C-alpha cells in the first residue's frame, strides 16, 4: 500500500505520473486532502527548496518538482475548497511599473507556492493602482515587489507609498531584486527584503511572524 511518504518522494523526484496515481489512491484510502498537502506536498517542496539553497539542484530540477506538486494540487484543490479549506496565506507578487525583468520574481513566486501560499502573480510592469486593485480583490497577507533597474527603484518606492496611502497598513510588503538592499527596504518603509528566491520564504514567514 502506498504511503504519504511515497507521495513526498514522488514530488521531490518530480515524477508527475506517479503523483497522478498516488494522490487518488491515498485519498481513497481515507487520508484527508489537507493532510496530503501539509504532510507530503509542502514538506517535499521544503526539501527541494533546501537542496536548491545549498546548490544541490538546478532550477530546471526544482521546477520539475514544482510541476509535480501542481499536478497534485489540480486534484486536491477542488476537494480542499469543498471542505472549506483555503491556503493559510495569500500573496500577491509583481514587478514594478516600467520594469520587465521577471525571472527572479517568478522564482520567488515558485518558492512561495511551494511553501503552500496561494500566489497571485500580476506579471511585469505593474502600476501602483494595479497592485492596490489586487490587494482589494484578493486580500493578501503579503505583497511582493520586484525591481531590477535602478531607474525603477523609484517606482517601487511610489508603489509602497501608494499602498500605504490607500489605507492598507496591515499587508506586509516584501521587496527584492538585484539593486535592492535591506537599507533601501528600511528607507522606503517595506516590511521585509530578501536577496534571493531561496530565502524569500523565510523572509515572508518572518514578516508574517510565522
Amino acid at each position, binding site marked *: 500500500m502506498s504511503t504519504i511518504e511515497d507521495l513526498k518522494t514522488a514530488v521531490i523526484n518530480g515524477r508527475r505520473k506517479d503523483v497522478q496515481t498516488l494522490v487518488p489512491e491515498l485519498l481513497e484510502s481515507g487520508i484527508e486532502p489537507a493532510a496530503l498537502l501539509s504532510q507530503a506536498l509542502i514538506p517535499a517542496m521544503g526539501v527541494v527548496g533546501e537542496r536548491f539553497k545549498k546548490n544541490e539542484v538546478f532550477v530546471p530540477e526544482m*521546477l520539475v518538482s514544482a510541476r509535480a506538486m501542481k499536478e497534485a494540487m489540480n486534484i486536491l484543490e477542488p476537494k480542499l475548497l469543498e471542505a472549506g479549506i483555503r491556503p493559510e496565506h495569500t500573496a500577491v507578487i509583481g514587478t514594478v511599473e516600467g520594469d*520587465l525583468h521577471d*525571472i527572479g520574481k517568478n522564482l520567488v513566486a515558485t518558492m512561495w507556492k511551494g511553501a503552500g501560499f496561494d500566489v497571485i502573480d500580476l506579471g511585469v510592469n505593474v502600476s501602483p493602482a494595479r497592485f492596490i486593485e489586487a490587494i482589494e480583490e484578493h486580500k493578501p497577507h503579503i505583497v511582493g515587489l520586484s525591481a531590477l533597474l535602478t531607474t525603477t527603484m523609484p517606482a517601487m518606492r511610489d508603489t509602497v507609498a501608494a499602498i500605504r496611502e490607500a489605507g492598507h497598513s496591515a499587508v506586509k510588503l516584501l521587496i527584492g531584486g538585484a539593486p535592492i538592499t535591506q537599507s533601501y527596504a528600511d528607507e522606503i518603509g517595506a516590511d521585509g527584503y530578501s536577496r534571493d528566491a531561496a530565502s524569500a520564504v523565510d523572509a515572508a514567514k518572518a514578516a508574517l511572524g510565522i
Partner: protein
Amino acid sequence: MKYKTLAIADPAKLIYGRAPRPIKTRRGMCIGGGLIYPELNFTLPDINIRKEAMPEIVRHYQQIVTEALERAAELEAPGVMLEFETLPPMTEHPALGMEVVNILLEGIEDAHDKYGLKAALRCTPNDNREFVRPPLMRSGRYWDAMLELFDQSAAAGAEFLSIESVGGKELHDDALVNGDLRAVLFSLCVMGVRDMKFIWDHIVAITAKHGVHAAGDTACGFGNTAMVLAERKMIPRVFAAVVRAVTAVRSLVAYECGAVGPGKDCGYENPVLKAITGCPMSMEGKTAACAHLSPMGNLAAATADLWSNESVQNIKLLGGMAPTCYMEQLVYDCRLMNTAAAEGEASALQMRDWLVKSDAGRDPQAMILTPESSITIAHAIVQAPSHYAAGIAAARAAVKILRETNEAGCLRIDAREAGWLDRMDDELDDMPHTEDAFIEEMMDEVDLEKFTPADYGL
C-alpha cells in the same frame, strides 16, 4: 543563409584589434584596423525618468561625457566609442532620448576641439515591444517610437546604430529555467531569426538613408540571461554554453541583412560572428564586472576590436565618478593590448593566448568561445542549409567541444553537470529533420498566449 564560407578560417587570425572588414569613423578611428579602442557605456543612478527630471538627467549625462572624455584624452587614448544605451522611457519618448544624444554629441565635439580626441557615438535604443503582452512585434507605438529614435539619432550624428532586440524571448526565459534545448532552438532559430530579419531590414534602411553604420545586434536577453543564471548556479553552465553557441545563429541575421559592425559589446557570441563575417566586434569582460559577473573576463578581450564596460551608474567612487574610473580602466586594458600588438604578430598572439588560456579551462562557456572553438562553431553554422539546421549544428558542435575538452582534461565540468551533455545530445537527436515539421510540432506544445505567431510570419 548568406554566408557560406568563413572570413577568418585560421584561429591564429582571429585576434583582437584586427578584422578583415575594418570600419572608419568620421574622426578617423579605424575599428578592426590594428588597434583595440575603449567603448564606454554608462547609465543613471536611481532616478525616475520623466519630463520634470530632465534637468537632473541632463546634468548627469553632461558630467559623464565631459569627465570621461577628458580622462581618455589625458591618458592619450587613440580613440573612444561612447555607447548611449537608452533607458526604456528614452526610447518610448524619443524627444527625451534625443536630448541625451545631443548632449553626448556636443561632448564628443568639445573633446575633439579641446584635446583632438577622436570619438564616435553608438546609439542603442531599447526594444520596448514587449511592454505589451503578448508583444506587438511589427507595429504599434513602441515599434514606431523605436524607429523614430534610430532615425533622429542617426540624423543628429550618431555614427553607429545597434539594438538588443528581443524577438523570440517570449518563450526563451521559460526554456532556460526549464533547461529545454528544443524550446531554446525554437525561440532563437525559428522566432528570433524571423524577427531579426524584420527589424534589421528596417534599421539598415535607416542607416543607408543617413550614411551611418548598422552596427549589429546581440542575443543579450538570451545568451547573457543564460550566462547570469549559470553564474548564479541556477542552470548548468554546460547548458548556458550551448545556448550561447545557438545565439550566434540569431545574431548573425543582422549581418546577413547588411550590418557591418562593430557588433555590440554584450554579444559574447561575437567571436563566432567575427569569424563568419569578418566584421569588427565590441566585447565586454572583466572590466564590465560593474554591470554583471562573467566566467571569461580575460578571454572576452582576446578577439575584441572595441573593449567595453557594458554599463555603470553615474555614482561617486573614491577615484572619481564611476564612468570616468571605468574609462581609465578600459584605456589601460587597451593600452596593454595595443603595446603587445605594436611589438609584432607574435607578441599579439602571445597576449591573446594568455587571455584565452587564463579562462578557457575553467568554464564551459569560455571553452566554446576560444578562437579555435569559435571557428569550429562558425564552420558548423555556415555549412548548414538553413538557420534551423545551423542552430542544431551549432549546438552539436558546442556539446562535442565540451565533451572532448572535458575528456582530454582541458576543461573542468562540475560532476552534477556531466549528465546534461547526454541529455542535450538526446534532445538534438530527436529534433525533426525539417523546420516545417519542427514548427508544426512546437505550435502544439507552446503557450500561444505568450506570443502572436502572425508577428513572426508563423
